[in-house]
């Protein structure tokens, strides 16, 4: 029997799972674009938390925070992808392990 109401904690746990997946993607993946997308996944997970708390507190502020997160993500995507393009143009690779000339 499924209750009609979903506890807010479930949303939070879903958000945690997505965030964890984002972290895992960030750590395991080697393609810089995928790494970037993992970051977006983490941002999305955080947004879900904001919206959930907004519901919990019956205040709209959480929505506004996630709105700002989206805007910043858009700016970040624009600049980040431009950087990736430049890197690819110069290095002909997208694997972050190969871009290591600043390593030591």
């Amino acid at each position, binding site marked *: 029997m499924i209750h009609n109401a979903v506890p807010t904690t479930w949303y939070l746990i879903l958000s945690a799972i997505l965030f964890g997946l984002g*972290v895992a993607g*960030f*750590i*395991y993946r080697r393609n810089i674009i995928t790494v970037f997308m993992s970051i977006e996944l983490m941002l999305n997970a955080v947004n879900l938390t904001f919206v959930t708390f907004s519901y919990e507190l019956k205040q709209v502020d959480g929505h506004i925070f996630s709105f700002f997160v989206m805007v910043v993500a858009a700016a970040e995507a624009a600049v980040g992808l431009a950087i990736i393009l430049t890197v690819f143009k110069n290095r002909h690779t997208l694997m*972050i*392990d190969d871009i*290591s000339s600043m*390593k*030591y």
Partner: protein
Amino acid sequence: MYSLWLIPIFPFLGFLVNGLFGRRFSKPLVNLFAVGSVALAFLWVVKTLLGLGALETKYVEHYFTWIQSGNLNISIDFAVDRLTAVMLMVVTGVGLLIHIYSIGYMAHEGGYYRFFAYLNLFMFFMLVLVLAQNFLLLFVGWEGVGLCSYLLIGFYFLEQYATNAGNKAFIVNRIGDFGFSLAIFLIVRQFGSLDFTKVFTAAGTMPVEAGVGILTTISLLLLVGATGKSAQIPLYVWLPDAMAGPTPVSALIHAATMVTAGVYMIARSAALFTHAPIAMDTVAVIGLATAFFAATIGLAQTDIKKVFAYSTVSQLGYMFLGAGVGAFSAGIFHLMTHAFFKALLFLGAGAVIHGLHGEQDLQQMGGLWKHMKITAITLLCASFAISGFPFTSGFFSKDAILVGAYARAPWMYWVGVLTAGMTAFYVFRAWFLAFTGEYRGHAHPHESPLVMTGPLMLLALLSLGGGFINIPHWLEPMFAEAPENPTLAWISAGVGILGIALAYLFYVARPKLADSFAKSMGGLYTLIYNKYFVDEIYNATVVEPMVNGSRVVLWRGVDAGLIDGIVNGVGKESRGLGRVLRLLQSGNIRSYAAWIVLGSVAVLLFIGLMGGAR
């Protein structure tokens, strides 16, 4: 609102424009901004003062809070009262004339725009100093003019002596500023405010027994600051060297305005000083000693600017004397007239130097009357004024001081009179050496252009007639009324005339007499010719021990041994530690991220174990 802030802002804008873009401007454009901004400031001063009228009470404009810390509230306030009004007129008026004059004087110099930018910056800081309504803002102006003074003394920075002179001025002033800042700290501690009105009211209502100690300390520390800025014993040594700068600078900064800031500051703080009799006496004695001492040195100098420089020190001593004996209004009066005639003296000297292509030595002059009549006449006016010749400006102001001194202690009066005689002697000695007799130099003297002689003539008029501006009467509501005593005035005037006569005797009527006199006074002459060896004494007693001590103890011992040892040791240990930690620094972003995850797991574990973040 009279928008007082506009007054300093005009020169500041001039500074910005010339300083930032002046390199690309033509000279007329630089002139336009530099002189125009000062002219605007002058006009704004005139408009403001006309609008404010009699200024029975202080007019204050509050702009914004600058520093808010605990109970201490320091704001950017400008204020105008009668004292400020006088200073404003002197600074902007004389400043404007000197700016105009500089167009001619600096015409062939390099760094033209730089010179005017500095000069405008100086005007800005000087006006801030004068307009300030609290000690800290005054201090800002005070340091600012010091900075400009340093920059302008070292204007010919390719010459070693100029940079040395600049450094000397700056370093010596540090000593004075140190005293001044200590005084400010004490004032904050004692009164909890730096606002003039609040501090002076509080000082006035203080019980005498409780207040006299702290007030004396504050006043003496302020005096230290004033001696630095206004070149009094023992910190006067920088001023003669400061003549390394261009002559208009000497006229504006080191004669008419900046060096009088100390006098202004003491007059401004009169409420503190009058409650500290010991400090007052100290001011008077220092002033008198400086006046006398510098006058004696002036007797034997051969560099025309040096003569006037020592004369400036001496005259500043007079002003201190006036302030010290309680005749503040007389001191400010003398400040004003001195600004006129001493600016004129320097500008005249500048015209002579300019006409002789840079020659400054009086021995290389003579007979210039034929070549530069306007300069000669205007300089003569100034000389009469500084000698206290009857009905010239110096006569009124100097005698007001001397009469005040007599009221305090007659011996001060007599020393002052003697100094006045010497003043008249050495000034006219310089004039006679320069303009009479035969030409002894090699350059081809010529008269200066109108842009230089114009300000000279205006200043000459002011030097002669400036005494009829009754400053003491104007300042009466602020300071105690100055006593009057015509007999004493005539005595000092007579001594002055005597001095002029002696100078005529020695350098015109019987030129041989001077040399033989110098020979007969051999030791004394050498002593004063070398300025009492003060620089050498300072070198031996202060500078050398300081340098040696710094080198041996501070540098070799403390710095190289202790501090470097600590720093190097820390570095060495860090490197050792880093060698271990480097193993973590794999350069692999993902491993870093993994560490972050590990850390957050640890934090979460901690939160979980502690039972939550509530």
